[in-house]
């Protein structure tokens, strides 16, 4: 079920976010849903179930097929980011509140973009020369946009009446 869900999110990512661009930044729906998933699941559950990782990889490969980047980079970026969030959540942000989660969102979107940027530079070096554009403009904009989107969606989820799972967010 989670694999199908991720494929659906990947499908939406291909068809709709390019049209939701604000100042050139588009939302990364897969990453946004990964973050929401991490935050709304029960604390007691063991982290990163296998089918979650397979679903995420399937969505990543789907995105890779449509991307102009080297095939597989988006998937690797997503997996790397998920491992980072998992590690940060376990080791640093064991008690999550609104602020720590905002930092978690910011750092994971930033990490994802940097992985993609540097692997792109490694695999297709001729295509990345305008570093200033990416590091000063494009990436910060995407980080802010996606973090705001995650926080908004969590707020909506909270309004829709599932406060028990995410109440720690707003403590």
């Amino acid at each position, binding site marked *: 079920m989670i694999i199908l869900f991720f494929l659906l999110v990947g499908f939406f990512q291909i068809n*709709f976010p390019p049209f939701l661009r604000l100042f050139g930044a588009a939302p990364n729906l897969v990453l946004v849903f990964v973050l929401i998933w991490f935050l709304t699941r029960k604390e007691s559950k063991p982290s990163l179930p296998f089918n979650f990782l397979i679903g995420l990889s399937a969505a990543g490969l789907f995105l890779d097929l449509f991307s102009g980047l080297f095939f*597989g980079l988006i998937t690797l970026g997503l997996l790397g980011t998920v491992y980072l969030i998992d590690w940060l959540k376990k080791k640093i942000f064991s008690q999550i509140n609104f602020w720590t989660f905002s930092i978690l969102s910011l750092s994971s979107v930033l990490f994802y973009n940097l992985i993609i940027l540097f692997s792109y530079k490694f695999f297709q070096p001729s295509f990345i020369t305008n570093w200033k554009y990416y590091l000063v403009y494009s990436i910060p904009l995407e980080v802010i946009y996606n973090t705001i989107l995650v926080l908004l969606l969590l707020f909506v989820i909270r309004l829709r009446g599932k406060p028990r799972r995410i109440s720690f967010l707003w403590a």
Partner: protein
Amino acid sequence: MPSFYVNKKRYWKIKRKAGFVLPVFIIAVIIFLNAQGLLEGPKNIFFRIISPFQKDIYSLGVNLNKFADFLRRIKKTEEENIKYQEENQKLKGKIAELREVVSENKFLRQQLGLPDNQKKQLVLVNIIGREPTNLGDYFLIDKGRKDGLNEKSAVIAANNLLVGRIIEVSDYSAKVLLFTHPESRIDVLVQESRVNGLMRGGLIIDWILPNETIEAGQTIITSGLSGLFPKGLLVGEVEEVIFSDAQIFKRARVKPAADLDRLEMVFVIK
């Protein structure tokens, strides 16, 4: 501690580690296979299956975008309508003038024995997806090598508007790099003043000498110098000229002529 408990704990630890490593390993294998060109077949099958309905879904996304844009601009509609009507009148006059120039040009070519301008061979293609990351302006089209498309072929929209060029082609699909990509470089020409320049991605023309004439509103076309794009494709118009006494060269910001977010179909120049 009972041994079965220790084994169980160890089993879960190994399983968890395998769960971490396995997906990365699978992706690494896929990257390797792709680099060797072994995934071309499955990719072609995927795009042949998905293309027919993907183009409709993409079109739905474009229409949603158009609708949202319409809602955003609804207040300005009347104002814009008057502006466009005025512009339309001016353009009608210009078209009549240009028709005269075309017939004169045809006559002179005949008199001088010059060959006619070569007509471009165009292939109509549907856009089936956009780049999902922020690192590039690409889109995917539903025709490929089997339809005669090649890498580096120029891609245009109706009315000769520049869109980009093909950077990767497979049997039934191709990837197009838009000319707005930060890494793109195009040799351009200011139509009115015949000033040549290099337009970088981010839509900036650099290295224009201070004594050369370039003004806001002037038309930018491809110069055809690099051979990547044929001469005369409409790129856009000069939006702003950036120059101060402290600078040696002038720079100009270009507003693209094609609305790249609303394209559903484009032409590839064979």
